[in-house]
């Protein structure tokens, strides 16, 4: 056992520390930690953090490990701290439409428990459903439902955060309206484990929708962009509006692009919204999917990034969807044409977000440099128009070279000050958010 793991083993109950080859599957990007710890309580998390601050060990918080290859590779990883054993629901009063759970609870388990009471948390981030609530909040991940239902910042009411130096902070609360003091809670959402470990989270819930319907259009991509924009501006509450272009190698004949319009309302309203949508679409042919079929289609959207080597997230104003699509075409050149499914494209039409999801990148002499050059060119093009490019996932050398996120600008010193306050020794996920 290495020295670091030995120190941790003395402080934590038996079976909570793993090292050696068993730590390899917890590599963050390509950094293998010296130890992985699985604390089972907030006080154990605090103990690890105090120790890390004292010893100067870098710690990357994790859940089930589904985001380890996302974000920017941290400068160093001594310890991965997984909260996956902290997966209990600690307070659930269905009448309050709120639930408090430990951070390591899987979204699947949470959905099951809330579903028993006809409630749900309308979050559909990319990735497997077993992924934890804390990881979802920490990465501020969301999916097609975000425009209508909100992203983690709109759902989360309170958290318990264990800071870099082991302070235990209860931020926010468990009521749906709360303006008691500065909203420090918001800093933790999307902080990628650079400010603390989320050990407990209280979130809003919603009544489960009584009906689930998807209206599916099929056509050439450029036509669908126009249709998507028309539907997005129609006066109807849509749960999601997603444009999907399957990879080159998973297409069957005919036009392959899809536009999926999801409606989650009461049955009568669903029919009416469906009518507004199809009227807006005029003569376009469509297919209607109800209940399970509709839910499954969007399950598949959640799984689109699974196994991808490269995921690039492009963003502009929603009205600029066609521009986004053209940038996506530029990026396609980076794909290996003979491996996997090719390049999938998925756009959250209402939010102006388009993901380019590549099975495998083309290799060859200087491929990283070439890819970096293309990505930087697209990024500066988007930034010039007020948009952004985020490298959600990619080969570590590439992400390190171009940065997962664009330049943060003049707010950087302020953010660094905030980081120092919650993680004085700088041990939490250093470099995971680029400059933070």
């Amino acid at each position: 056992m290495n020295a670091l793991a030995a120190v941790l083993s003395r402080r934590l109950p038996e079976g909570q520390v793993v090292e050696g080859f068993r730590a390899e599957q917890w590599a963050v990007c390509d950094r293998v930690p010296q130890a992985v710890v699985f604390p089972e309580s907030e006080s154990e998390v605090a103990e690890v953090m105090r120790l890390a601050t004292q010893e100067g060990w870098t710690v990357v918080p994790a859940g089930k490990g589904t985001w380890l290859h996302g974000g920017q590779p941290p400068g160093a990883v001594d310890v991965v701290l997984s909260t996956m054993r902290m997966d209990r629901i600690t307070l659930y009063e269905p009448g309050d439409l709120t639930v408090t759970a430990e951070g390591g609870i899987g979204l699947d388990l949470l959905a099951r428990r809330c579903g028993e009471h006809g409630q749900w948390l309308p979050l559909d981030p990319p990735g497997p459903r077993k992924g934890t609530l804390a990881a979802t909040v920490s990465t501020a991940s969301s999916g097609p439902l975000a425009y209508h239902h909100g992203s983690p910042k709109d759902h989360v009411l309170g958290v318990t955060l264990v800071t870099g130096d082991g302070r235990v902070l209860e931020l926010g609360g468990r009521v749906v309206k709360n303006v008691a003091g500065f909203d420090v809670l918001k800093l933790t959402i999307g902080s990628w484990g650079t400010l603390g470990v989320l050990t407990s989270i209280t979130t809003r819930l919603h009544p489960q929708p009584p009906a689930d319907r998807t209206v599916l259009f099929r056509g050439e991509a450029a036509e669908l962009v126009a249709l998507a924009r028309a539907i997005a501006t129609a006066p109807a509450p849509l749960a999601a509006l997603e444009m999907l272009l399957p990879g080159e190698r998973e297409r069957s004949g005919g036009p392959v692009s899809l536009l999926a319009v999801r409606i989650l309302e009461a049955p009568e309203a669903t029919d009416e919204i469906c009518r507004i949508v199809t009227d807006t679409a005029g003569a376009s042919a469509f297919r209607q999917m109800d209940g399970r079929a509709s839910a499954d289609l969007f399950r598949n959207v959640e799984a689109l990034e699974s196994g991808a080597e490269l995921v690039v997230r492009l963003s502009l104003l929603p009205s600029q969807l066609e521009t986004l699509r053209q940038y996506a075409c530029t990026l396609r050149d980076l794909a290996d044409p003979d491996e996997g499914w090719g390049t999938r494209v998925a756009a959250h039409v209402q939010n102006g977000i388009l993901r380019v999801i590549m099975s495998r990148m083309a290799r060859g002499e200087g491929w990283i440099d070439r890819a970096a050059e293309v990505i930087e060119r697209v990024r500066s093009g988007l930034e010039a128009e007020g948009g952004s490019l985020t490298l959600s996932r990619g080969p570590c050398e590439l992400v390190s070279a171009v940065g997962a996120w664009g330049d943060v600008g003049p707010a950087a010193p302020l953010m660094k000050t905030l980081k120092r306050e919650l993680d004085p020794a700088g041990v939490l996920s250093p470099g995971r958010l680029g400059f933070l």
Partner: protein
Amino acid sequence: MSAALTSEVTADLQAIVGEQWVITDPVRLLAYESDGLTAYRRPPGAVVLPADTDDVSQVMACLAHAEVPVVPRGAGTGLSGGALAGPDAVIVATPRMNRIVHVDPENRLALLQPGVINADLTEAARPHGLYYAPDPSSQSACTIGGNVAENAGGPHCLKYGVTSRYVTGLTVVLYDGEVLRLGGLGRDSAGYDLTGVFIGSEGCFGIATEIEVRLLPIPQATRTLLVMFDQLEDAGEAVSAIVARGLLPAALEIIDRETIQAVEASIFAAGYPVDVEAALVIEFDGIEAGLDFEAEEAERCCWEKGAREVRRARSEEERLALWQGRKKAFGAFGRVAPDLLVQDATVPRTRLPEVLRAITEIGHRYGLRLANVFHAGDGNLHPNILFDRSDADELARVEQASREIMAVCVEAGGTITGEHGVGLDKRGYMRMVHSRDVLEVMRATKKAFDPWGGMNPGKVLP
């Protein structure tokens, strides 16, 4: 901070914004001596009225250089004393910054200056079939800048959420005059959510000078019910039953007997029966189809919980009439008692009946007149204590009762303020809900934005 609002500073301010936009006349300053919470009164040293971001930046740099504290102010409708400045501080007010830069129907966005009045934004969006969702009761007077500072709510945030849900980007000016652009739709911002933490910072971090907000399509239809109950608790139970049935009304508001009587005795009389213990306003909105079903379901819940009478709005006029008692409650209290203390605690919805019981008991015990009018669906209580400040004994009982009410709400898992903010008024309660460590982190967060300590000093933190 050693303040020095000298005549040189005043002259510099005049040079930046123009002579007529700097107020120093003591009589005119009286208009700025309080906000909506009139218990606190303190005229500022001066008021500056800038026209745009650049003005604000220069004004702030000037004041920072002279080490004069700044208090931002919108329409002054706040209910926590947050916009109060002393004689050694300057109010930077936004009434001239009332321009809607554009409404963008394609992207359902609007870009505006902070002095735009909440209701005016909705008015400007209406021709495009859009509106701005957060609707604080003061929406015909309050500004969006003030809404951002307070993270304002309103009756319809049960379904639609509060201000933070709708603000997508901000331009803010810090105390030293630095201009930061935060967030913005169509962009994944790198780093921490500074937009999110700025919202609700009550003027302690900086001044928002441009605000980008999301607009929603105007709901196709609404159904509004007014339900009378002989017991306040039954109304609370009905709220729980509606939620338990999986319904999500746009609003669920309770008005108690004391409030109904105040309204009915005033020029705002709305025709509510004065002998009921509570009235519950229920509103559904959305697509026309299916709304009747939802309203009927809600009505059934009310009958099951002992409702005495249900009224349904059949027209927009009738709808406004049903809402009248709720919307005009605060105006009506004015004629009942010289002073009013508005509380704003939020509790988990299921704890409402017992908390209401406890609040009534506290009122009785201290011999005070209590009127409840509140966002029941959100568990956001507004117990109002009607009293006379000139009666020292009564004032002491009011303060004691307030503290006890807060303690009951916090004990029930709630918090001290749901939408009015802490300001000057509730600083003393902050330790009831936050640990020393959390308060320290809040202090440090303010310091990150305002290391000079010049922004709205003495507010929010105990």
